[in-house]
């Protein structure tokens, strides 16, 4: 529980953080809330030589809405996101998901940028971002780059982010009829299986849907079978049948003490149904 020695630098700006990242090379790591990185360092699973703290940078803060598009700065904490009136009104799925991450200490320190960059297979926000078709904004030595969430998450702890890039924020279209449902891993409270559903509703009928799962597999990903089955379905009654095959379609499923592959597949269907029902119940 004691990390190896490291140097700590607090960046004064995103530009400074970028140049420190370049200087530091593979030894350097960004530090945001520290609630994924520091536990790994204490276990000596990560041994960075240089930590560049971006947690307090104003440039990475804020939650804004502009013409129906909502942008969240990378350094916003889960607690701030959970408490945002703007999100509660216009994208309640995001605020609610953040409110159920870990415990109060984790929410007070952990950030959305850190959660997405780290891409723990059981992290909650990645599924929500995929379902909302969010764009993730990255800044590197060659300027800005935008990646769709579904392309960003690639594998276990693996994202489309170069070593010298910073996640600056995310943006997505406001959406009320979206919800996230998760089965908590009982020790860590990460998602054993979590499903986010964002629906376009026409009365009781679903015209189109984006549904994404986390926890079940190596990384957050769309459940396209469910999305297809939802098109034209009447809700909430059609939720169960649309969700029924959700788990079977996954080609890789995690397995551990807390849930076998079979259980996680089954729970993917259960939580897909719950997420769809909750989303459909929102107007």
């Amino acid at each position, binding site marked *: *529980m*004691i990390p*190896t*020695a490291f140097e700590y630098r607090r960046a004064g700006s995103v530009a400074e953080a970028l140049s420190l990242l370049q200087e530091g090379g593979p030894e350097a790591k960004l530090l945001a809330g520290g609630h994924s990185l520091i*536990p790994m360092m204490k*276990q*000596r699973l990560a041994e960075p030589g240089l930590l560049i703290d971006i947690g307090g940078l104003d440039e990475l803060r804020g939650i804004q809405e502009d013409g129906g598009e909502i942008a969240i700065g990378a350094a916003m904490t889960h607690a701030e996101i959970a408490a945002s009136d703007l999100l509660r009104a216009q994208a309640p799925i995001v605020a609610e998901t953040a409110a159920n991450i870990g415990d109060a200490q984790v929410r007070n320190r952990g950030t959305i940028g850190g959660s997405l960059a780290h891409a723990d297979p059981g992290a909650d926000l990645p599924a929500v971002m995929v379902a909302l078709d969010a764009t993730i904004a990255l800044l590197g030595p060659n300027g800005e780059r935008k990646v769709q969430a579904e392309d960003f998450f690639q594998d276990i702890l693996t994202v489309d982010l170069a070593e010298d890039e910073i996640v600056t924020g995310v943006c997505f279209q406001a959406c009320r009829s979206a919800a996230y449902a998760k*089965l908590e891993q*009982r*020790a*860590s409270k990460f998602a054993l299986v979590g499903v986010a559903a964002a629906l376009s509703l026409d009365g009781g009928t679903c015209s189109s849907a984006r549904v994404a799962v986390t926890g079940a597999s190596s990384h957050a990903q769309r459940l396209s079978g469910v999305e297809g089955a939802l098109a034209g379905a009447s809700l909430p009654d059609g939720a169960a049948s649309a969700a029924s095959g959700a788990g079977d379609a996954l080609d890789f499923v995690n397995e551990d*003490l*807390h*849930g*076998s592959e079979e*259980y996680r597949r*089954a*729970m993917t269907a*259960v939580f897909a149904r719950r997420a769809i029902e909750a989303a459909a119940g929102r107007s």
Partner: protein
Amino acid sequence: MTIADGPALPKLIGERVKRREDPRLIQGQATYVDDIKLPGMLHLAFKRSDIAHGVIRSIDTSAAAAMEGVELVITGAELAEHLGPMPIGTPFPAPDHFSVATDKVRYVGEPVAVVVAEDRYIARDAADAIEVEYDELPAVVDPEAAMEADSATLHEGFERNIAVESYWGGTGVNPETAQPEDDSAVDAAFAEADVVVSQRMLNQRLAPNAMEPRGVVAQYEPGREYLTVWSATQNPHILRTLVAAMMGLGEHQVRAVAPEVGGGFGCKINIYGEEYVAAALSRLVKAPVKWIEDRTEAFLTTTHGRDLLGYIDLAAKSDGTITGLKARIIADIGAYEVLLTAMIPTLTGLMMNGVYRLPVVRHELTEVFTNKTPTDAYRGAGRPEGLYFLERAVDMVARELDMDPAEIRRKNFVPADEFPFATQSGLVYDSGNYEPCLDKALEVADWQGLLAERDAARAEGRIVGVGLSFYVEVCGLGPSAVVPTGGWEHSGVTVERGGKVTATTGASPHGQGNETTFAQMLADHFSIPLEDITILHGDTGVVKQGIGTFGSRSQAVGGAALISAAGKAGDKMKQFAAALMTDQEVSPEDLVFEDGRIQVEGAPEVSKTFAEVADYAYVPVPLPPGMEPGVSEEAFFEPENNTYPFGCHISMVEVDRDTGETKLLKLIAVDDCGNVINPLIVDGQVHGGLAQGIGQAMFEEVVYDEDGQPVTASFMDYVMPRAADLPVFELDRTVTPTPINPLGAKGVGEAGTIGSTPCVVNAAVDALAPFGVTHIEMPLRPERMWRLINEGGQS
């Protein structure tokens, strides 16, 4: 105004006095081991085995030793020149167990070398730099497979990995010959039974997880040849005895201190290798040394609890009368026997009589070595296991016979007029009155209402169950005949100048609240304010003698010693008071303590204040004939027997049909721990115990993989119960005093962990009974429950 004119002092025994120790604890003003910083202090880090089983081929310490700030690197083999094998506190045969492994490692986390360095960071880095090569051996993980002839063995001389085997049966053990009596009666009882239930049940391995991990600071003063050891321990006096022996010192050369201790739950009874190593290395490097366990080490190296596999058979007549019990128990004790390891599973069989008249019993116990962390006491220590097996089996019989779980228990209770009651296992229950306790629990829970609520929920398609358990347990450990360290307790009571009181106790509280309850007792005894009393504990330099706090003994044994010492001090105060009242010709026997005075009973005008008598005792002019100055008395209390508290727990659970998640809706606990000194503290003890007992039923389990690698070595995987997982407990009690000590108090520290576990599992089985489920293994993992709902049967 003198105290004599002051207000009447309320009696405090039986009052909900708030814990006096809490303000300093919750404001961070208390001193734990890690707060102790001595000039020139060095720090230890242990290199630990990352494999479960292997022979140490080589240890290369050169890189570590070369690091700046490293004072010493020492391997187990080198350390063995300074420290012999560790002592144990049981009479069972045990293999040598060195503080640091000398030639072979037997569990992940076992130390192989130690670093002494300037600070903790350097020490840890240096430990990482030590290179160890092993010849790996097959890991022995499954205790049943461990007993097969083809299994690898951990210890030479322990064939088939068997540490202890015991057997008794029939109508019990013949006390003359110590041999099992003819047990054909057991077979006959089973042959004649109308119903027999047979179940294999696992009482799983648990990690105690005290909030404060272990830690030790040792300071050997050369020249003075005196060792001081501060340790997060439950029993500093035992620590002193054993460290002295290991160091070749006399007890007069060792002071052991348990400063504030942040929970023990049994795991801080054992005296660990790290404590001996710290003492030995402080002498070797001539500087104070400190070691503080980190959480990973706590999971890997602090003793685990439970891990008993039971094959249980219970026979009964069709009217529910229990006619016989067979228990074959396999205890997976891990890699070594530490202080009480081998004794704990023996308590299981001793207590498996429960609250019932059991005509015949056959009990077989095998304790088996595996490549896992050693086990020892964990809150309840042996009793939760036995009561779990029994209370599950009784419930199964009730289900077979379609009997109400309360009524089958009532039918088999030891009746109130049969106490003291001798069990099949040779114990004598001091006192008991089970039916009123059952009735009260049924009333508080509204049992019939609960059943109706369950049935209504089922009619709606919900999966709901109710469960009940009735336990008896053993507290107040003593007497000396059964506790290897001695089963007495010691106390000192000094009336200081000015009439204030300092008392010492050999009980060493680490969360039990004795500073409050013991002060309440003295306040009433002397009729002085609580604020005038200080209770000191946990320091062998201050507390002359003691055994410690475990086995729910601090009140029943420590409290009795305190009252005995207080009685002696009180007698002397009365003698001094009488001497001050010579003009009135008062005899000490006529005097009582009343509202800060010592007065003739019923005549407050004939009195002296407690303070003036105390002042006189220290400046005794004239000194009464035959008396010594001062008032400082001490007492040892040796209980003649243990105490046997009991209680009834009732719960209601609901299972999510889709996910298998179990929610505990209600928990009602009616406990009888005899006379209660402080109901608030008793409730607190019950609350904590319930949380841990429910934790075992629903959440907790230490898991190893087939290579002996721990899978649950952090809180990211080891599921602890949290406040949000628990309902608001409904508590009540009945009071059946014990005749064993003058207080009539039995002990309550472990009760909650004993009744709640089978109670919750019984409720879960009841919930899934409509699916054909007859038993569920702990913990109630969602996937396990989900499978049972979908597949039925057992898990």
